[in-house]
């Protein structure tokens, strides 16, 4: 997917000015937050469990190559083929190649963010394979002219029921329905046909289990099961960082993932799929492929940003983010929104291509305290800012202003003079009123709110006077 992250500021302003989106965001806000808060209380030692989850993920990342090799060996032993992809283009080439080899005309897909990273649907069409998204949210986006998702687990959270009703009515040429169950039934009827006629199923993978060579899928709609068991060919596309050592580890991580994501104790479906269909088995694919993707991840391993690779894609950080809640996911411009996206996008697509994202956060650390694998998101955002400064990627004016301010702040006498001047100026600007409505020196501030007027003297002045010392 092409990144529009360099236009974050304009995207965000457009989101704020879009009344339909704003209304939808307001409806969605807090839904997951409240449910998560209740769900985590079911775990006796939530903090201890987070710590253990963090350890599991760290253990893998410290020897990622070894765990991947182990996974490759065990998966291979169960009849799967493991392929590696350097980037999105290579994912597309692999899938097209697999399609050609097995004479695939149609591929049903369950949710995969890697597919979004690669822009796979367009590539499949170009290769003569019809892609059909079967996750309800992803399906809605696909029939809406391949709209990008705005959330990693609830891709259409930005849409209202009304908008979906209109879309189904127009696309399916059926009477307009406004009840959710009726709309779901309609989607099901359309999709069933595709499930039965597809030659290939494409899924993501929440975890890869090294000891057994399995992929774990966590879904709520059951489409994942159909995608992975009905077609002859199953292709799993996932990031190289998704591997974990054992099934035991999976069970621990699963205590956190659905609770952090949707506030469910357990999602409706958890599938652990191992290998191709064996002679005595009823279901399953005859051919199973894993495409394990780098696309920027390998460079993060061993770097000061390695913590980010612990991410288990639960979405809690964005659900709790005041900025995400206010502008929605599309403004972030690439596949991953919210705090995790603001760290991942510059790392995967280049620091210079997402210059605003590390700054698009108040550093309130709401994300850091909810992250189930304890990723210090604000700290990583701050480190990215530091990288930008080191590489002189910040605007010249900002760099000079910062340097000048820091230089003055290091000189108390000069600083005191500057402060005395500034407060008098602001007091004058307020002209006797309690707050300033237009401030030329900080237009961004006063565009949306007033700036309260200062008292007019600095503390240092008043203190010196009151305590009669200088």
């Amino acid at each position, binding site marked *: 997917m092409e990144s529009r992250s360099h236009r974050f500021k304009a995207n965000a302003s457009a989101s704020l000015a879009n009344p339909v989106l704003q209304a939808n965001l307001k409806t969605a806000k807090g839904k997951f937050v409240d449910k998560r808060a209740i769900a985590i209380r079911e775990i006796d030692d939530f903090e201890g469990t987070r710590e253990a989850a963090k350890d599991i993920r760290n253990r893998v990342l410290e020897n990622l190559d070894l765990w991947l090799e182990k996974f490759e060996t065990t998966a291979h032993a169960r009849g799967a083929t493991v392929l590696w992809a350097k980037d999105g283009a290579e994912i597309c080439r692999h899938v097209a190649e697999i399609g050609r080899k097995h004479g695939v005309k149609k591929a049903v897909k369950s949710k995969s963010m890697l597919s979004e990273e690669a822009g796979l649907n367009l590539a499949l069409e170009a290769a003569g394979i019809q892609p059909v998204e079967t996750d309800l949210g992803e399906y809605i986006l696909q029939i809406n002219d391949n709209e990008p998702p705005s959330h990693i687990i609830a891709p259409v959270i930005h849409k209202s029921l009304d908008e979906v009703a209109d879309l189904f009515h127009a696309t399916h040429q059926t009477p307009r329905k406004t009840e959710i169950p009726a709309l779901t039934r309609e989607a099901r009827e359309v999709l069933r046909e595709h499930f039965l006629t597809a030659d290939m199923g494409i899924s993501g993978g929440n975890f890869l289990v090294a000891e057994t060579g399995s992929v774990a899928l966590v879904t709520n709609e059951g489409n994942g099961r159909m995608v992975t068991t009905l077609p002859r060919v199953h292709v799993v596309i996932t990031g190289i960082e998704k591997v974990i050592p054992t099934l035991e580890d999976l069970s621990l991580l699963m205590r956190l993932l659905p609770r952090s994501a949707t506030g469910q104790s357990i999602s409706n479906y958890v599938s652990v799929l191992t290998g191709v269909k064996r002679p005595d088995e009823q279901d399953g694919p005859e051919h199973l492929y894993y495409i394990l993707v780098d696309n920027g991840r390998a460079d993060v391993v061993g770097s000061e940003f390695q913590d980010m690779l612990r991410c288990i894609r639960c979405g809690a950080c964005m659900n709790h983010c005041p900025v995400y809640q206010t502008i929605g996911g599309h403004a972030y411009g690439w596949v991953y929104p919210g705090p995790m996206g603001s760290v991942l996008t510059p790392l995967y697509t280049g620091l210079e291509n997402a210059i605003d994202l590390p*700054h698009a956060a108040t550093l309130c650390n709401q994300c850091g305290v909810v992250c189930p694998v304890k990723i210090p998101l604000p700290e990583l955002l701050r480190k990215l800012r530091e990288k930008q400064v080191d590489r002189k990627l910040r605007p010249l004016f900002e760099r000079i202003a*910062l340097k000048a301010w820091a230089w003055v*702040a290091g000189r108390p006498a000069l600083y005191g003079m500057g402060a005395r001047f500034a407060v008098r100026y602001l007091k004058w600007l307020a002209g006797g009123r309690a707050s300033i409505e237009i401030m030329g020196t*900080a237009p*961004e501030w006063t565009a*949306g709110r*007033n700036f309260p007027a200062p008292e007019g003297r600095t503390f240092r002045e008043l203190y010196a006077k009151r305590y009669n010392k200088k």
Partner: protein
Amino acid sequence: MRIALFVTCLVDMMRPRIGFAAIELLEAAGCEVIVPGTQTCCGQPAWNSGDHAAAAALAKKVIGEFEGHAYVVAPSGSCADHIRNEYPKILADEPEWHARAVALASRVFELTDFLVNVARLDAVPGRFAGSVTYHDSCSGLRGLGVKTQPRALLGKLPGVELREMAGAEDCCGFGGTFSVKFGDISAAIAERKCGNACATGAGTIVGGDLGCLLNIEGKLRRMGDERTRVMHIAEVLTATDGEAGAC
């Protein structure tokens, strides 16, 4: 007990009365308050903007000015959090300075945290009466665990009625330089905070960080609300009057 007051740059410029209120409270708790005269800013804006060198220079300046005191108290969770939790990170690569940062860290406190947990203030000097709602600022709350301390102090004022708002722990949208880099997003977040605060019907919004308070007050006034007061916790605890109006 001798303590050093870290006034903070915002209080110095915008609301000196908060600094004097802090002194009054600390003295009421039996402390002798020193105000090191060369202090300026803790350097947080530099650190959060990615300027490591500037952040380190200011950190060293603060350490030099304050390390000789038994305790350092700031009327701001954000600055106290920065000195306590970030200075050791900022100076991680300079062993001698790092050690000094760590030595200072455990003696730095946010004002209400210090009054309740260290100085064990009995009675507060103020006579404020009225309904208030308390905004939990992010750094104080999540960085230093400031949550019950200001409420305990408000509880010592018999005339104060605390009305908790929905999302009291949600960010107000200030975020330091964020507020001037992304003014529209920042103001939109502030609007939600103001809505939650006003929904309580409280006459005064109280908080422990001036940055948030300026943001909230600025948004309220822009929304046309001239009546709801926005006050720092130190002002409330030392005030001699009651409230003016409600949202």
